[in-house]
């Protein structure tokens, strides 16, 4: 039976039998798409398997990549305006060369209303990190900030379109590395430090990042035909 299993895994795009230690939570969007496809197949409704209507893009493979990054803690207390710093890292190696990217959306879950009633306004900054390995040591070079936005309240999940940077990282065979910083906006009144520390600690606890990638496998789906004039 080993041989057939190997063939089946190849068909799924896997090298060997996956052995996850525990199942990752499945995001509601993937659950919904799966249930819709299953219902359509059962009722015999014809469906375009090469487009994801729920997301408005073409594609037949959807992947949710977990963040493999880590928090950074600054040694000097001088950077008091910084609430949270984290390197985000997404391993793109599971995506084969032939697949065409149609969507790459970063989801940042900032948790439920942790600072709903609190004063400090927060700002989120995202920049690209270029990782290189010299003599076995990883060095990181921060790029320009490409997202800078106020964090709304209540926060929940924020989404960012990272299609271009993800494509570029995948093309160069690298992981997608991002530097996330949450900053405190403006001056703080005395006595607000305690509240702020609470807010930042809460954010660090609840922060969860993932990258939703949609790709089109050209062997299974033809590229969209151009309409004639």
């Amino acid at each position, binding site marked *: 039976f080993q041989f057939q299993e190997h063939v089946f895994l190849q068909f*799924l795009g896997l090298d060997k039998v996956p052995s996850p230690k525990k199942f990752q939570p499945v995001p509601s969007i993937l659950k919904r*798409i*799966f249930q819709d496809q299953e219902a359509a197949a059962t009722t015999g409704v014809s469906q375009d398997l090469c487009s994801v209507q729920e997301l408005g893009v073409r594609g037949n493979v*959807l*992947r949710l990549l977990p963040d493999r990054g880590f928090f950074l803690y600054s040694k000097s207390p001088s950077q008091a305006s910084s609430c949270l710093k984290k390197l985000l890292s997404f391993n793109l190696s599971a995506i084969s060369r032939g697949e065409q990217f149609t969507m790459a959306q970063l989801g940042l879950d900032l948790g439920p209303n942790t600072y709903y009633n609190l004063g400090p306004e927060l700002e989120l900054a995202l920049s690209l990190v270029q990782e290189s390995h010299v003599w076995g040591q990883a060095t990181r070079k921060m790029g320009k900030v490409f997202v800078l936005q106020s964090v709304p309240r209540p926060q929940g999940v924020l989404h960012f379109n990272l299609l271009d940077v993800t494509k570029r990282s995948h093309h160069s065979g690298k992981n997608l590395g991002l530097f996330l910083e949450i900053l405190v906006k403006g001056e703080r009144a005395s006595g607000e430090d305690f509240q702020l520390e609470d807010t930042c600690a809460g954010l660090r606890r609840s922060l969860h990042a993932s990258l939703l990638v949609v790709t089109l496998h050209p062997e*299974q789906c033809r590229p969209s035909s151009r309409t004639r004039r």
Partner: protein
Amino acid sequence: AAIPASRASCKSLCHRHQLFINFRDLGWHKWIIAPKGFMANYCHGDCPFSLTTALNSSNYAFMQALMHAVDPEVPQAVCIPTKLSPISMLYQDNDDNVILRHYEDMVVDECGCG
């Protein structure tokens, strides 16, 4: 010359055979999140010339069965899927990525001679 009608019983005629594979039996439930199993239906049975038109056959199958009756060197029409439906699979790979993938033409819904 008239072609003799074959005496194939109804059971041996081309039709869909239902087969469900439970992923748990294969140990695949450890990485496939959904569905729980796969409908591995298959087509099997005879395609006698006399019943080619009745067995959900293509025009080509009719012609092939006719040719086979005239010249046994020509292969018989065979029992094949005539309607297939897709499946979606939700699974987790070794990098802990959650993957949703759609596969076309995976489940046999109907069979016929072709």
